[in-house]
Every structure is written in structure tokens, then in C-alpha cells.
């Protein structure tokens, strides 16, 4: 089966597609038809709902349902936020998409906004993606010039504009409620719903936060129909294609668009050049740093929301980080926990206090000062962090839980040897 290219069909080396190139590939046809033709916004929601489009930012929430959650009689202004924060370690698909086809994202944002009558959009982007922010600002101006964005879009009477909002850089900003605080110039603490942002978001007005890749799917769904989108997936319950970004011990790390549900083995061996010479697949994190290690036992798992859920894991952002037999899993888990502990926003205690404690225990085990009882302590703490306000703290515990579930022998060997067996083998 040929690789179906939807989001990456206008991919060029080293430059983004222009407005003309996007239009030649059918771009802005959906906007002409639905916004230009003043189609009922409810129809946009219905079609996207029917397509089975689920959020590509990690949580996998159905996109149409999110827009539908904005009450029909909700006050104005209403806001749409495109989340291009992408700070989940291992994840860089949105950056590549932004550098590939910015107008696909812009059209997706306008159509999503139209679905719940949003009046203003924010494109929230992290500091290390400044080149993406610059591209976006330039192409937004191009879209305005073409009449696709701004006042009275295509003579429809509907007005919507987008501004780029630069972040100062913190992992928590990718969490939807924290992101809203960040935009409003408040400390980006998460807020435990209810009320949900769809009722009271930015400045207490209805706000929808969607991932960039999710938004980019929308024009294609509306142009080609929900069934076409469903049929792009290999798995029966899946829908669409997925941007997989693969890094670590493979020959050709990068991002590729593949059918939802493509088996892990095929992704690694066929699309990313296989393992580097001398390396064997030991484990991967299938969807960013806050998913569980996936071992050789599940090497053939179809990479889709439901199939990963069935084996107790998550598709997350589909950022696959690959580790080989020479990688120490305790050291890896320690590195991940160092990230989570440092990036904890500090708003609630289980995360602020719990994550550094877990990092310390992992460091002690890795450096030969581990004790058997630390294993139980770590397990217990993985449960405690669920008492946090937001989902990022339980996410942080995922690599640790799976370290203990799948690599307990390796952990115990560290404790028994009073040091890291991988260091010993490497002659350090």
C-alpha cells in the first residue's frame, strides 16, 4: 500500500509550501465551501465528529466533541487556541508540520473557529520554535491578503483573526488550562475543571484548545468527507493518518506521515531505516516521555489509540523514542524524571515534592546506593502523584511504573551490584 500523504503532501526539503502550492493541492477549497458558502457550523462539527478525528496532542479527545461543548448560547468573544507548545520530550512533529505546510494549519484554525463561532485565535508557540513563529506570522499576513483571514472572510460576514503568542518556555504551558493562564499573562498554573475552558476559558469566555496536527486534519476531512478520513487508517477503530516522529537508535530519525495503526515494527524497520548497526531494539516510549516503556513483546503492536490502550499504554503524541540493548533503563528513567521534576510548575504538592523524590531514588539506584525498599517506595509514589491537579504528574510517573513492571530485574541488579551494570560493561 502506497504511503498516503495528506498533511505532508506538500513537503519540500528545507522550505515551507507557499499559499499557491497549498491551493493547487486543494487548499482553501473547504474554506470556500463551508465558510464562503455559509454552511451551518453544526455541519462542520457533525462531519468532523463522524470522521473519528481524535486530538493529536496526547490526550486523544474527539475534536468535534470539544467544539460541541461550547454552549450554543455562550457569550462572545469566543477564542480558539492552537497549541504548538510541543514540549513533550521526543515530540517534534508539529515543528516539521509547521515548516512543511503552514496554510494547512491556518485553514484548519479558521474552520475550527467557524465551527463554534470563535472571533479570535491564538497560535501558542514555544521559544525554541521561533523559526516556526516567524513562518506563521509571515503566512498569516499572506492569508489575510488573500481574503481568507480577518474581517468578512470570503464575503461571508464571518470575521476571525489569528495572533502568534510566544511562550517564555515551560513544559506546563502545553497543558490546556495552564496554557490559557500563560496567554493571559498569569503564572501558568493548571486549573482543575470544572468549569471547562469550553465554558470559561480565556478571560472567562468560551475557549477551545486544539493541537496543531489535529487542526491541520480538518480541511482535508471537510474536503474529502469523513469516510475517506476513516479509510486512511489501517485499524478498524482508527481514523486518518498520523505524524510519527521517531528518534533514538534508528538509522533515519525524523517525522513521517503514515496510516493510523501502522505496526511499530514496520515504522521502525521500513520507514525509519531500522536499528543502527550493532543496536537491537530493547524498548521504546511510544508517545512521548509520559507514556510507558514498550518492550520487544509488543514490537508488532498497531500504533493507534485503542490498540495501545489495550496493552496498557498510550499513543500520546506518537513520538517514538527508541532505546537499544546498550541503554540502561534506570539511567533513562532518571533522565526523564530529572526533566519532569525540573519542569514541574510547583503548583501542587504531589508533583512538586514527589517528582524530585523519585528522581533522587532513581539516582541512588543508578549510582550504587540503592536499597530493595526503594522499589516499593517508587511504586507507592507513582500512585500518589495522581492526586495532582493536572495530568502531567501522573504522566511523569509512567516511565517509572513501566521501569518497575518490565525491567525490575535490571533495577534489582543495580541494587545487588551496588552500581550500574551498563557502566561496568562499558569499562567505566
Amino acid at each position: 500500500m502506497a504511503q498516503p500523504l495528506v498533511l505532508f503532501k506538500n513537503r519540500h526539503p528545507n522550505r515551507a509550501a507557499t499559499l499557491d502550492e497549498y491551493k493547487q493541492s486543494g487548499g482553501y477549497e473547504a474554506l470556500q465551501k463551508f465558510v464562503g458558502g455559509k454552511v451551518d457550523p453544526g455541519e462542520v462539527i457533525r462531519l468532523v465528529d463522524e470522521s473519528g478525528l481524535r486530538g493529536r496532542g496526547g490526550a486523544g479527545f474527539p475534536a468535534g466533541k470539544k467544539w460541541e461543548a461550547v454552549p450554543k448560547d455562550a457569550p462572545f468573544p469566543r477564542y480558539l487556541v492552537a497549541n504548538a507548545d510541543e514540549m513533550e520530550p521526543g515530540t517534534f512533529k508539529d515543528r516539521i508540520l509547521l515548516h512543511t505546510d503552514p496554510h494547512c494549519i491556518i485553514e484548519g484554525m479558521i474552520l475550527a473557529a467557524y465551527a463554534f463561532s470563535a472571533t479570535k485565535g491564538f497560535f501558542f508557540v514555544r521559544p525554541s520554535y521561533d523559526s516556526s513563529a516567524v513562518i506563521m506570522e509571515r503566512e498569516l499576513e499572506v492569508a489575510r491578503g488573500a481574503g481568507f483571514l480577518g474581517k468578512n472572510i470570503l464575503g461571508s460576514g464571518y470575521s476571525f483573526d489569528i495572533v502568534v503568542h510566544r511562550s517564555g518556555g515551560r513544559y506546563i504551558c502545553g497543558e490546556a488550562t495552564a496554557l490559557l493562564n500563560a496567554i493571559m499573562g498569569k503564572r501558568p498554573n493548571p486549573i482543575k475543571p470544572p468549569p471547562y475552558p469550553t465554558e470559561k476559558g480565556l478571560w472567562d469566555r468560551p475557549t477551545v484548545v486544539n493541537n496543531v496536527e489535529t487542526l491541520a486534519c480538518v480541511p482535508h476531512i471537510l474536503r474529502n468527507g469523513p469516510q475517506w478520513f476513516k479509510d486512511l487508517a489501517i485499524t478498524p477503530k482508527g481514523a486518518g493518518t498520523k505524524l510519527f516522529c521517531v528518534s533514538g537508535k534508528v538509522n533515519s530519525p525524523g517525522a513521517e506521515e503514515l496510516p493510523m495503526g501502522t505496526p511499530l515494527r514496520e515504522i521502525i524497520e521500513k520507514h525509519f531505516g531500522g536499528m543502527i548497526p550493532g543496536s537491537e531494539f530493547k524498548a521504546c516510549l511510544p508517545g512521548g516521555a509520559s507514556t510507558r516503556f514498550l518492550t520487544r513483546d509488543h514490537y508488532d503492536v498497531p500504533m493507534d489509540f485503542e490498540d495501545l490502550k489495550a496493552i496498557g499504554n498510550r499513543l500520546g503524541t506518537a513520538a517514538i523514542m527508541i532505546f537499544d540493548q546498550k541503554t540502561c533503563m534506570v539511567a533513562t528513567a532518571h533522565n526523564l524524571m530529572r526533566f519532569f521534576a525540573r519542569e514541574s510548575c510547583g503548583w501542587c504538592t504531589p508533583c512538586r515534592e514527589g517528582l524530585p523524590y523519585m528522581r533522587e531514588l532513581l539516582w541512588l539506584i543508578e549510582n550504587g546506593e540503592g536499597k530493595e525498599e526503594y522499589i516499593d517506595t517508587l511504586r507507592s509514589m507513582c500512585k500518589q502523584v495522581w492526586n495532582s491537579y493536572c495530568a502531567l504528574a501522573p504522566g511523569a510517573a509512567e516511565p517509572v511504573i513501566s521501569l518497575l513492571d518490565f525491567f525490575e530485574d535490571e533495577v534489582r541488579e543495580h541494587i545487588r551490584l551496588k552500581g550500574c551494570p551498563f557502566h561496568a560493561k562499558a569499562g567505566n
Partner: protein
Amino acid sequence: MLSEELKQKLRTMIADAESPREKAVDVMLEIQERHLWMSDEAMEEASDLLGMSPLELDELATFYDFIYRSPVGNYVIHVCDSAMCWLEGHQRVMDYISIRANVPIGGTSPDGLFTLLPVCCIGYCDRAPAMVINRRVYGKLTPEKIDRILDKLAGENEFHPPE
């Protein structure tokens, strides 16, 4: 301490916002473009423009990775130390830069040119090990590549001294 010209630019930025403090990060990034870091004086003047108290602005300034509340060099080198860059030898990159540019890890070189800091995943995992310097990202780092980058930055600086 902020020039009238810069203040006018900041006022224009703020005027576009739904509410002034929405532009807090943009304002601080813009000030850092000219003055490298956010001094107490800069914080006070910026918070005035934003309609915030200096303390409210400091709550944000100290929170974000790319806002600096201590003096930094002309170039702030953030070396990624998250999973993929760690796997590909971020520590070697850190050590090499430290020796090559005579800059302590977490500090600034005596000539005021470079500051060296770790940073969380910057989203360039396919090009690990990677770093970001003044909004520009460099990946697949080797000692030779680092030499070229540092030499180029040092060279540029001779012709464009900061304010």
C-alpha cells in the same frame, strides 16, 4: 533605562492585546533583545507599561526558561539535556563548550560573550545532540561543528557590539 524609542515599540505591542499583561513575555523578550537580561530597573519599567506590579511580572520572569533575571552573555547557549540528547552525549557537548569557550557550566565567560545553561527538550530530537543560542537551533553537534558555530558568533560580535 529603556530608551523612549523602545518604550514606544513596546506600547504599540501592548496596544494590540486583549489585555496588556498578555504581552508580558513579548515585552520581556524584546527588552532582552537590546539589554540581554531583565534587571530590576527593566522589570520596573516593563511592569509599568504592562499595568502590573513588579512582583507580578517577576512571578513570570522567574518562571520561564528563556527570561533571564541575572546578567548573561551576548550569546546564551542552552544545551538540551533531555532523553534523546542525553542518549547522544549532551554532557560531552556541555563539557566541550565549557572548555572551548572558557565558560563555566551555569555561568558566563570572562569576556561576557557566552553563557552556558542546560535546557529541557527543545524538540529537535531527530537532530540530537542539539542546542539553542539566541532563538536559533543547532543540531547534530560535533566538536568541529561547535568550533565553527562559536568562532562565527565571536566574529559577528566584533562588528556588532551590543548596546
